[in-house]
């Protein structure tokens, strides 16, 4: 595949990998925890970008797939003592399947109606899970500590989860890049620009959108399975946390709607900013206010986001910066 040898992709992958390996080489567990969250956000933002940035469908409640993957993975690891890698993959498969089935009716909606429906789906799943006793109901589930023994102990298990999340992040970025550069991606962008025209040009939008939704559900689900495995417990609240979803939208807008590197930069900048705001005594309770204001400023003045703006500045950047 020609696309896979493109330097625009490799440089990004190498930078992300290099940064992600710092805590493992320098043995900094605290930094590792921080980067785990950052990688998770990169996965979430990049996935949201595939459906929102490329296809033009704002998935407000995308966090639902993180929760579905988390619960599926957790349940399989807990009750069947399944290996976390396999459990995560099954979680991803379940999330994609649900996205596929939900997508068929929901993706007929356009604009704000679709965005609202995705919020509804997230809330519905949270309520559903809260009422299933086998999944721990409202209190959630706690992983039996003995499960970690199969991986050589809790420390090793959490390292494994970290390597896992690095791998998923790299896969997500690669998938995002490949889609953008493919014929399929061109169809998505045509749908984003004008769905009716896309149809006249020979594109079946229903099919393309459902496939995209299923793909964009897969990666957050993997991240969810790894995250809750590492955490050792899962509850409906953190698994289906709507404001995480909204933050992912801010990251996409901040970095650059419809670009590959945008969500990565957006996740990084946003996470740094949030870290600063939360620890700063003046702003600690207002970080969501700030991110709301930030979103407003981007939407009003720099709609293209950081990467989009850079791409507009010169043809050279346009060629190499995706």
């Amino acid at each position, binding site marked *: 595949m020609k696309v896979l040898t493109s330097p625009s992709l490799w440089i990004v992958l190498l930078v992300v990998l290099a940064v992600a390996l710092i805590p493992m080489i320098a043995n900094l567990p605290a930094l590792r925890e921080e980067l785990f969250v950052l990688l998770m956000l990169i996965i979430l933002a990049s996935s949201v970008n595939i459906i929102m940035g490329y296809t033009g469908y704002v998935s407000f409640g995308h966090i639902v797939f993180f929760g579905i993957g988390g619960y599926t993975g957790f349940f399989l690891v807990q009750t069947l003592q399944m290996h976390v890698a396999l459990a995560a993959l099954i979680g991803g498969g379940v999330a994609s399947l649900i996205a596929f089935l939900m997508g068929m009716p929901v993706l007929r909606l356009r604009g704000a109606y679709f965005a609202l429906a995705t919020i509804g789906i997230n809330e519905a799943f949270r309520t559903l899970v809260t009422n299933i006793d086998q999944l721990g109901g409202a209190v959630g589930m706690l992983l039996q500590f003995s499960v970690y023994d199969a991986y050589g102990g809790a420390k090793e298990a959490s390292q494994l989860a970290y390597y896992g999340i690095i791998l998923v992040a790299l896969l997500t970025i690669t998938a995002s890049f490949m889609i953008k550069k493919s014929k399929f991606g061109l169809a998505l962008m045509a749908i984003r620009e004008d769905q009716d025209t896309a149809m*006249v040009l*020979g594109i079946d939008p229903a099919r393309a959108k459902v496939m995209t939704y299923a793909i964009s559900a897969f990666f957050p689900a993997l991240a969810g399975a790894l995250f809750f495995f590492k955490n050792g417990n899962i509850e409906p609240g953190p698994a289906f946390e709507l404001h995480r979803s909204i933050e992912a939208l801010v990251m996409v807008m901040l970095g650059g709607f419809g670009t590959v590197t945008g969500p990565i930069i957006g996740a990084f900048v946003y996470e740094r900013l949030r870290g600063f705001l939360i620890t700063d005594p003046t702003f600690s309770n207002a970080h969501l206010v700030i991110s709301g204001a930030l979103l407003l400023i981007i939407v009003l003045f720099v709609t293209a986001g950081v990467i989009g703006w850079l791409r507009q500045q010169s043809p050279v950047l346009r060629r190499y910066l995706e």
Partner: protein
Amino acid sequence: MILEIQNVSRRFGGLLALDKVSFTVKENEILGLIGPNGAGKTTLFNAVNGVFPPTEGRVIFRGADMTGKPPFALAQMGMSRTHQIVRPLNELTVRENVTVGACFGREKHGLDAASKIADEVLEFVGLKDRAEMLAAKLNVAQKKRLELARALAQKPILILLDEVLAGLNEQEVAGMVAVIRKVRGQGVTIMMIEHLMHAVMNLSDRVVVLDYGAKIAEGTPAEVSANERVIEAYLGDPKVAQRFLEGG
């Protein structure tokens, strides 16, 4: 017979926009579709290519019953169209716009081949030097050419042109007419809606006239322009119309 339109009606609530229209389009001809504003010409295009499926009647394209099939199915079978009100994919470049046509039209090319076809077609319609531009930045005349380029990149058997000459100046009209002739020269069948009488009369082999959603005449340009009902539909009074036609 490339296209058979059989008793096609289309109703929007209480409005009968198309009233049992029937005619056929033959291979490699240019068929002009004319009629006063609101006669149902664009609605007929929409009924034929599946944007608004007919409420009654059949559309047979290349021997297959395509009534009510979605637009992409018709596009993939070799029917492409341009829009009266241009609809560029704004945030994509001109080349990408045309590449979409080549990728998902009749021949379903891969990206590389499609992008080559896009360049050829852009050269053909005279937009080659704008290939890298965002489609939104084109002027109206260029957007009309882009519409045509996109439709041609689909490698159509039949192309539906909806007022590609409207809003162009005299020189641009001449350029576009030449392009349409060349398209026909490549073996493509053309059905065109046009208000510019001298152009449509010059280009068309046959002309179909709609008024209030119904077909009122069909024939060669000469036959149609001598038809009293047509003249009446256009201008009310046949005598005034006659003077108009002789003068213009």
